[in-house]
């Protein structure tokens, strides 16, 4: 098969997610309402607490990162969730595709949506709270976004693995995994405030490093972006291997059929 055919196997999931999203009125909530509400809540809280500009930037970076992460990870998870909800998983998995076609195809749409949300939040945070997301130049922003999208892919893959392993009810993982990340990766507070055991866990999450890296633009401090990048690559590769394995397992155990019933 030539490269265009191979590319289309990726784009098939992008296309499906795009059509489903554009026909769903709640997409507007995902793109505008919830992100802006989240940012306003945090922004107004910083005003009420009358905290310094460093802390404001700390919290706004965290809020924006969380919003993009949630938006993009859902798109990766949707690649299987849409099939599961419409009971059409059989039709997808009888086609000659690999796990990475599904994940990266869905991630393309996740990145597009995430970047759109990011753009809105950058404008809103700048106009309402005077926070300049581009203060450190474009490179830190790009590195930060790559880290967030890699983390979104890892969470989305984990949701897909859960569905194929535990069946339909595992879709609750789609909504709760980013909550765990919120708790331990230093979204709204430095990881140093966590109990020691959770600090160790936070050091195993790539997003922690990407947040520290980006915040160091505003609040100079140590960061280890290379370790974050290494962890992100490791998790992505490991996640894809686990996803491929869970597809094969679902074929062995018959979960593949039950998900279509």
């Amino acid at each position, binding site marked *: *098969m030539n490269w*265009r*055919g*191979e*590319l*289309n*196997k990726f*784009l*098939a999931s992008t*296309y*499906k997610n795009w*059509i*489903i999203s554009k*026909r*769903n009125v709640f997409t507007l909530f995902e793109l505008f309402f919830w992100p802006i509400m989240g940012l306003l809540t945090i922004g107004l809280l910083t005003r009420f607490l009358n905290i310094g500009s460093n802390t404001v930037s700390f919290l706004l970076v965290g809020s924006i990162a969380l919003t993009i992460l949630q938006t993009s990870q859902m798109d990766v998870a949707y690649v299987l969730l*849409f*099939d599961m909800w*419409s*009971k*059409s998983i*059989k*039709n*997808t*998995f*009888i*086609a*000659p*595709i690999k796990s990475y*076609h599904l994940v990266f195809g869905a991630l393309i749409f996740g990145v597009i949506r995430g970047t759109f949300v990011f753009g809105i939040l950058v404008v809103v945070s700048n106009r309402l709270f005077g926070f300049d997301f581009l203060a450190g130049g474009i490179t830190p922003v790009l590195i930060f976004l790559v880290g967030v999208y890699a983390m979104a892919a890892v969470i989305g893959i984990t949701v897909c693995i859960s569905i194929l392993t535990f069946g339909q009810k595992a879709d609750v993982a789609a909504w709760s995994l980013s909550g765990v990340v919120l708790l331990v990766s230093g979204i709204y507070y430095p990881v140093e405030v966590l109990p020691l055991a959770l600090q160790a866990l936070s050091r195993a999450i790539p997003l922690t490093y990407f947040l520290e890296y980006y915040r160091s633009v505003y609040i100079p401090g140590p960061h280890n972006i290379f370790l974050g990048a290494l962890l992100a690559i490791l998790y992505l590769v490991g996640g894809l291997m686990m996803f491929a394995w869970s597809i094969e397992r679902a*074929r*062995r*155990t*018959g979960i*593949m*059929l039950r998900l*279509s019933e």
Partner: protein
Amino acid sequence: MSEISVKAIGIYKGYKSIFGKKTEVLKDISLEVKSDEIFGILGPNGSGKTTLISIFSTLIYPEKGSLRILDLDPRTKKDAIRRQINICTAKPNFPWSLTVRENLKHYAMLYGMYGSGLKKSVDKQIGAFELEEYRDIKFEDLSTGLKQRLSLAKAMLNSPRLLFLDEPTTGLDPEIAIKTRQLIRRVHRENDVSVILSTHYMPEAEMLCDRIAFLRHGQMVAQDTPQNLKNQLHLGERMILRYIGQVNIDEMEHIPGVMKVKAEPGKVEIVIDRMEENVDRIIKLFAGATIQNIEIKEPDLEDVFLELAR
């Protein structure tokens, strides 16, 4: 000479519950399907038809047994097999909010089609299954019959050499079911595609299938052409006579070839083997009566099924 599309020897599949209890779904299934035939898998609900089709289509894997699909080993050549097969499932389901055209485009992309080839293939299937009028209708708004046609269209997108149809007319109105059967026959004839079809509707199998395998409780109980199955099981023909007067029913049971006699006032139903050799002797027994009507029925697959299910 026709090639072999599916060769299965000793296929076994069981499922384990979370408490470790094992349910055997398929036991020691062996069969061969030729490339130029429509092969039927028949059996009651829960007999393992869908599981067997799912194994042949590489959706799930068998626990034991040897399997070759299109002369390829599904353990090592999954993608090569998947490129050449497709499936139309019992209850057709596709992403709800995608239209007919969008659904076909999505699945064509999953098969690695692109550019004008993709467009041509989608348009061809829309035309072949008379979906032009509905191309921009969302899946969730289609009738059951149209959903089934979309499912068949999707199954033909990659011009498969081997097509699996899992209870393709279940839940359809009789009129739509007849149309669907005509479509299946046409697809088989015009596209030179080998078809494996599961059904629990016997007339459908009789109408479409060159050969048939009967499953019961996960085991194969018979496999042959519909005619041979009827012959092998010595089901005999059914003769129903309506009459006025007196007839010696007891004597009828002793005529050679008579397998069963069921009598009620004015009517007798006789199951008889080699009717042409024995019909005279039966008629002679009605000498003292007036025959009003004679009805002769050949055994159908329903009879085969009932016999095998005993």
